[in-house]
C-alpha cells in the first residue's frame, strides 16, 4: 500500500514539484495569518480587567438573592428543593423556623463538587438562588471552594435582578 518514492524519475519530479508547491501554499497561508490580527485576547484576570463581563447567561459562582423583608434578609425559604435535586449533593442547608418564617441558618455549597448544572436554580420556587457571572473561582485551597451563607448573601447583595432564564419544561406543574 505504501507509496514508494523514486520508482521512476518522472514520477519523482512530479511529486517533488507538487510537494514544493503545497509547501509554498502552506507558507502563504501561515504568512497571511502572521499578518492578520490575532483573535485571542488576554485572559481577563480580575485584577487586570475588573469590568470584564462574560457572555450573558454564563453560569458562574453562586449567590443568594436578598429580600430585606424576610427573616435572614434572604429570599430563600429553605424548602430544600435545591438540596434534593443537586446531583452532586453539594448543597447543605440548615433550615430554621416554620411556615412563612422559615429561612436557612446555614447554606453551604461546595463548589468543588458542583458541576454548575443549573438544576438548583431551575428548581427554586422563589428564585432565591442564582449563578453570577463570576468566573474566577480557582483557588489553591479546597476549603476556599466552600461557599457559606454569608458569602452567598454578600454576593447576592450586588445583584439587583435575579439572573434567570425563561421558565423551562421540567418545572411545569402537574404529575405527582
Amino acid at each position, binding site marked *: 500500500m505504501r507509496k514508494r518514492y*523514486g520508482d521512476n524519475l518522472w514520477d519523482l519530479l512530479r511529486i517533488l514539484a507538487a510537494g514544493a508547491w503545497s509547501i509554498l501554499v502552506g*507558507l502563504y*497561508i*501561515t*504568512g497571511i495569518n*502572521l499578518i492578520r490580527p490575532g*483573535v*485571542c485576547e*488576554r485572559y481577563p484576570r480580575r485584577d487586570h480587567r475588573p469590568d470584564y463581563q462574560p457572555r450573558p447567561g454564563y453560569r458562574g459562582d453562586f449567590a443568594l438573592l436578598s429580600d430585606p423583608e424576610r427573616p435572614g434578609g434572604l429570599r430563600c425559604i429553605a424548602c430544600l428543593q435545591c438540596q434534593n435535586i443537586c446531583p452532586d449533593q453539594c448543597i447543605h442547608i440548615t433550615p430554621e423556623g416554620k411556615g412563612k418564617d422559615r429561612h436557612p441558618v446555614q447554606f453551604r455549597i461546595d463548589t468543588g463538587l458542583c458541576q454548575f448544572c443549573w438544576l438548583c436554580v431551575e428548581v427554586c420556587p422563589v428564585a432565591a438562588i442564582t449563578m453570577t457571572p463570576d468566573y474566577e473561582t480557582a483557588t489553591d485551597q479546597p476549603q476556599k471552594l466552600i461557599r457559606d451563607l454569608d458569602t452567598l448573601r454578600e454576593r447576592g447583595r450586588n445583584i439587583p435582578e435575579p439572573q434567570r432564564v425563561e421558565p423551562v419544561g421540567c418545572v411545569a406543574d402537574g404529575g405527582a
Partner: protein
Amino acid sequence: MLSFIANWLRDLLTAWFQAWHVPLVFVDILAWIVGGVAILILVMVVALVFIYLERKISGYIQSRLGPERVGPWGIFQTAMDALKLLQKEDIVPAGADKILHTLGPIAFFVVGLLGYLVIPWEEGGTIARMVDAHVGVLYVLAFGSLSVIGILMGGWGSNNKWSLLGALRGAAQMISYEVPMLLAVVCVVLLAGSLSLSTIVDQQKTLGLLSWNLWRPWLWLPVILYLIAATAEVNRTPFDLPEAESELVAGYHTEYSGMKFAFFFLAEYGNFFLVGLIFSVLFLGGWSSPFGYPDPLRIPGVIWLLGKATVTVFFLMWVRWTLPRLRVDQLMSLCWKVLLPVGFLSLLIAGTAALYV
C-alpha cells in the same frame, strides 16, 4: 568595529603585560578566554532572544498572542523560564548512566558553541582566525556533526526507551543529512576556491546585494539543499523526529529537567542560530553590507550579519510552524533518494559554472 575593539584591547594588554614583564603568550591565552566568554554570552543571549521570538512568531502565526505577561510584551518571559529551570530539581532517573546523563547536555552545548569560533563577524573579525583561514568550512561542518554525540549520550544515558528511540533517530538523521549539507557547501567552496568563511564573504562583498551567492542560478539548488539539510541537522520541524513530541514524548531529552534541560534547549537554539549565520555567510554575503563595499551606511558588519542570520532564522521558524513532520522512513528516503542525487547534480552544475562562468 569588533576588530577595532579587539585590537585596542590587545594593544592595551600587550602594553600592560610588557610593563609588568609577563610573557606575551598570556595575552593570547587571555584573548582566547575573552573570546570564548563573549561567544558564551552571545549564545545565551541569542538563545533567549530567539526562544522569545519563536514563541511570539508562532503565536502570531497561530492567531495567538504569545508570551505577554512578564514584562512589556512578555519580553522577560524566556529569561524567567531560564531562571525557573535553574531553580528546578535536577532529576536523574533510576538506572540511568549518571555520567552519560550529565555529559550529554554538556557535550551538546559545548559542541554547539565551537562552531561560532570561525564565523567572520566582520572584516577580519574571526575569533579562530588561523583555523578559518585554512579550514573554516570543514571545521564548522565537523563540529556540527559532533553534536549527535551529545544527543546519543543523553538518549542512551537516560535509560528510557523513548529517549533511546529519539537518540537513535537523531543519530541516523544527523549523520544522513550531513551528506547533502556537505554537498551544498562544497558547491559554494568550489566557486569561492577557498575553505575559509572569510574568503567566501570577501568574494560576495563587492557589489553588495547584487554579488550575493543567493542570486547565482547555479547555486539555487545548493541554497534549497542547505536549508533542508540544515533544518534536519538542527532537528526542527519538519525534521524534528528525534524529539517528536507527539510520538516520542520529548525524544532524547524526555528525562531531563532543570539545568541540564536548559543546556539542551539553549544549545538547540544556539545551533539553530549558527545555521542562520552560516547560511548568511555562504549565500547572503555575511557581514558585508547589501549596499556595496565599503558600507555607505557605516553600519558595523556584525549588525548586518546578525540581521541576515535573523531573517534566515525567521524563515525557518515560519517553515516550522507550517509543516507537519516526516516519518522516519520518509526522512531517510528523502535524504538518500532525493537530496543526495540533487546534491551531486548541483555539484556538477556548480563545477561547470566554476569552470566556465
